[in-house]
């Protein structure tokens, strides 16, 4: 029993808490440089966070019990009340906030789900295919568009979507950056975008072939030993800048392509939409245009509510502790 008591006392001690905070600070500093993508998911770092959670939960509940005890037996103990009591509540709130944030994060890492999904304009996504726990609905991307400033820089990325339940549209929404869709505990964010290229190949005596291809795809031209690498879509082409688009506004859209013969490069060029490129004698390629797709992050975080409460407690606690701190000029040392 004594040993258990001692262990609990150590785990809940401020010394252990400070040690853990320092360890988290130092290891995350090293991790941010050497392993920026993987370190924070490593078991060692997660263990530090769990230990901090245990330490702070113990420490905070002890403080809370003490404060409750003082409040109920306050007069007898002759404790100061008022300002210093408010400061005390602030500090407890601040510590409890950290506990809540850590619990929220832990819930998310066990039960949360977040995935980036590309969806082509006009296509639908069954939400349960991404997040099996979700209440089923279908997300249809009606349109993806980029709005521009006068200087042709993007001012907003927008995905117009419909939510379909049992075959009926129940809601339309414009998802944009800083403005996610929230539906039945699922959040959908605008994250990225891209284009599929509409390519047609025509050879004499053969039937034309038309496909939607991703950038950097290769098509073999039937009946020839030529292949075309559909390299990249440039929305605002300027020969002086080459592969670097002038802006994302489609002011001068072209497709950059290269032609290969038996695996070796013979030509690199660019073509406007609708322009026909002769690949070989009587073999042609036309780029008809592009079809945008939107990159949406689809997320379910069951710990978000707990973490949000923790965040509010942190802010409130910090302000209370600060406001009711005795003034420097009044402090005696």
């Amino acid at each position: 029993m004594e040993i258990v008591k001692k262990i609990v006392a150590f785990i809940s001690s401020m010394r252990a808490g400070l040690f853990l905070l320092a360890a988290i600070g130092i290891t995350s500093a090293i991790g941010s440089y050497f392993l920026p993508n993987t370190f924070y998911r490593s078991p060692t770092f997660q263990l530090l966070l769990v230990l901090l959670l245990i330490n702070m939960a113990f420490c905070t509940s002890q403080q809370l019990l003490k404060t409750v005890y003082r409040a109920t037996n306050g007069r007898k103990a002759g404790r100061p009340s008022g300002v210093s009591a408010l400061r005390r509540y602030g500090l407890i709130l601040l510590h409890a906030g950290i506990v809540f944030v850590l619990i929220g994060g832990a819930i998310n890492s066990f039960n949360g789900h977040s995935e980036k999904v590309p969806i082509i304009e006009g296509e639908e996504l069954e939400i349960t295919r991404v997040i099996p726990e979700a209440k089923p609905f279908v997300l249809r991307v009606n349109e993806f568009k980029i709005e521009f400033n006068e200087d042709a820089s993007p001012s907003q990325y927008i995905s117009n979507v419909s939510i379909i339940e049992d075959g009926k549209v129940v809601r339309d929404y414009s998802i944009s950056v800083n403005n996610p869709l929230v539906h039945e505990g699922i959040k959908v964010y605008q994250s990225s975008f891209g284009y599929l290229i509409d390519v047609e190949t025509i050879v004499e005596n053969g039937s034309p072939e038309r496909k939607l291809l991703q950038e950097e795809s290769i098509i073999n031209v039937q009946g020839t030993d030529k292949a075309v690498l559909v390299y990249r879509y440039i929305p605002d082409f300027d020969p002086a800048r080459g592969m670097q688009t002038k802006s994302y506004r489609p002011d001068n859209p072209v497709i950059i392509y290269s032609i290969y013969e038996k695996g070796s490069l013979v030509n690199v060029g660019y073509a406007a939409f609708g322009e026909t490129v002769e690949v070989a004698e009587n073999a042609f390629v036309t780029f008809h245009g592009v079809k945008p797709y939107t990159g949406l992050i689809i997320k379910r975080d069951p710990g978000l509510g707990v973490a949000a409460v923790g965040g509010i407690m942190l802010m409130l606690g910090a302000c209370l502790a600060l406001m009711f701190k005795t003034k420097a000029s009044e402090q005696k040392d």
Partner: protein
Amino acid sequence: MTAYIYELVYLAIFLYIIAAIVYFLPSKSELKQRIALWLSIGGLLINSLAIIARALLVGRLPLANGAEFMLWFTWFTILAYLFYEIKSKNKGAGGPVNFIGALLLASIPLLMSRQLGDVAPLMPALKSPWLTSHVLTAVIAYGSFAVAAGIAAVQLIKNSTSAEVWTNRIVAVGFAMMTLTIVLGAIWAEQAWGRYWSWDPKETWALITWIIYAIYFHLYYRRDWKGRRANVLLIAGFVLVLFTFLGVSYLLSGLHSYA
């Protein structure tokens, strides 16, 4: 006035440097103190004009890019110091704080000169009502830590603890504001990026900064680490602040790449 924004910045740097030099002079005369104080106030006024010029240039509250942040960061550092000097009647830290102010402001022409005249509209990720509160709280936090570090440096050199209660009070303001900065940033990140915490380098280093000041408070109130060691901690904390702001932007890449 917008055409002279660079000149305003140079003038403010100049005034802060001169103020620092005068503060550093060994004389203890009342006149010297007054001149130093008024040079610092002059720098602050020119610094304010530079912020107004930048606001007129872009037609919004200038709180988005690195140069805009630096204008505010310096402005608040000097303002907080002047408030401290007048209120506490301690004058010793004017030299280091004005010197820090000059260095901070000098980082604009040295590191982010183009940003000062940049009139490009805000990128979509920055178009959020959270921008103002997130950045203003960071300005107050960083500025408070700068002043505390300046006072701590003087205390260390003089081997004194007479201003300890004041540094503690100033750091308390900085720490509360840093807490708000981080939480407001997390709320915003949840809206914009879909995650309230991504271990992005800026987030990680802001947390490390927050941790060092949290450790400072615990050691201070336990009375373990007062005096010299507390002052060293406050200077180390400010070095972390600078790394979080400048080092992360220029050495590590991440989501916070707006500069």
